[in-house]
């Protein structure tokens, strides 16, 4: 569950990140956040994972109150979140398997759980056969699938994706979006910031439109925009 109540984010340089946003995303929902570059999509996601703190208003993610949360609790918030970025952010000197296992190691998971869950996550994204390969030997789509496996291996209740298909060709983008949909079918709340008009239009999910920091539209089973 994610809830924003009258949230405003102003950056120190005077930029408006988000203005008076109020919404609620229930558990198990799939939400697209769309809007032009610099409109505030990333700010929204950064507030959810507490990379940024709201200037005004209240943000709730799972059982955490982001707006008045001590720094030392941030790791525990993030252990309940899976995060995927446009540029994959894999560790080049670790294999696919190690990259995914790494996410479990640093939350001090049991070795036997690691051995059990990493293959499951890799199978889900269809990379079981490439477990021993290094990231630079993979295509962009495959790298993003490794990042997805890493994001879900700790069974987070929320998956946040910031332009996950931004560096991928349309076909591969669909693969990633379908994977996100599949992860969502398994009960994970998924929030995706994206520019992919055609995908958003076809997937018929809940859509937030952001313009200049304001959520101007919030529709269920929506299109990328109102125009058509």
């Amino acid at each position, binding site marked *: 569950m994610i809830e924003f109540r009258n949230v405003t984010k102003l950056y120190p340089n005077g930029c408006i990140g988000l203005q008076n946003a109020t919404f609620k995303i229930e558990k198990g929902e799939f939400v697209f956040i769309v809007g032009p570059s610099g409109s505030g999509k990333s700010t929204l996601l950064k507030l959810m*994972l507490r*990379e940024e703190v709201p200037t005004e208003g209240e943000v709730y993610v799972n059982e955490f109150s982001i707006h008045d949360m001590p720094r*030392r609790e941030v*790791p*525990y*918030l*993030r*252990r309940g*979140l899976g*995060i995927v970025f446009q540029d994959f*952010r894999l*560790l080049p000197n670790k294999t696919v398997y190690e990259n995914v296992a*790494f*996410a479990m*190691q*640093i*939350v*001090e998971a049991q*070795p036997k759980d690691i051995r059990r869950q990493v293959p499951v996550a890799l199978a889900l994204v269809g990379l079981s056969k490439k477990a021993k390969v290094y990231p630079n030997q993979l295509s962009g789509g495959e790298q993003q699938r490794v990042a997805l496996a*890493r994001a879900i291996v*700790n069974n987070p209740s929320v998956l946040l994706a910031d332009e996950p298909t931004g560096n991928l060709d349309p076909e591969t983008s669909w693969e990633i979006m379908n994977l996100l949909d599949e992860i969502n079918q398994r009960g994970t709340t998924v929030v995706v910031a994206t520019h992919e008009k055609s995908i958003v239009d076809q997937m018929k999910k809940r859509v937030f439109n952001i313009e200049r920091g304001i959520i101007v539209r919030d529709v269920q089973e929506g299109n990328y925009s109102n125009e058509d």
Partner: protein
Amino acid sequence: MKIRTMKYMVKEGFINTQRNLLMSLASVSMVIASLLIFGLFLMLIINFSYNLNRLKAQMEIVVFLEPDVTQLEADSIELKIKNDERVLAYVKKTKEQAYAELLQIYLEDAEILEGLSPDFLSPSFTVHLKNVDDSAAFTEEISKLQGVEDVSYPYESLKKLSTVLNWINAGSMVVLTLLLVISVSIIANTIKLTVYARRREIEIMKYVGASDWFIRWPFIIEGAIIGFAGALTSFILTSYLYNSLESYVNSHTLEYGISDLIKLVPLGNVSGQIFIIYAIIGMVMGSVGSVISVRKHLNV
């Protein structure tokens, strides 16, 4: 923290140290340089205070009685000295003994003593105290007694020596602090390179939910390894240099017949403490340097 995690961190610390071997070596030599200079001051202080204390222990207080002191007064003074808890031992010297001593000294120039009889001399007590620090108080009390002419105690010169020692102490503290600050910042810069090389990894760790300490520990261990390596090397160097100095000084003081006056502390007496001090300073320098250099990258 779980044992498995600790293993992981120690392993990472060692891997990092090796990965930046050249920079690690640069940091180690920095630690060595500062510890060697520190060691110089440390050994100076140790030897100064060692010799000062030896000197103090050799100091004796001589209580001279008036030449015409009565037997009763002399006995009461002796009783007072005898029963004083601060006194370790004392030797009584009568007028006659003092005269005999003088005769011994001026055996060849006996004419100097012409016309001098034991009656002109003062009986005296030579006193050794258990604790030299009581000297001033003891001297003052005794000199007030009836029949005491003078109490000789070279505590003015001791005081001066102590002042010199205090100045050396303070001076080396200042030098040491400066050295520590410089070394810590150099080590911090070295480890900053490791941290910079691994900033993506740190960022990912932060996003996946690693705690700050989980990220910090491997770097702290890296710093401690560097510090310890530096401490060990400088301890070996210090021991070697000090041993050569010790044998040189001891042979020369023997030659000049002042081996009783000046004596270097034997290394064996202090090597344990020196090693521990070096190790602590080195490892603290290393880990503080690490903490400083990682700090900036943790704010994701």
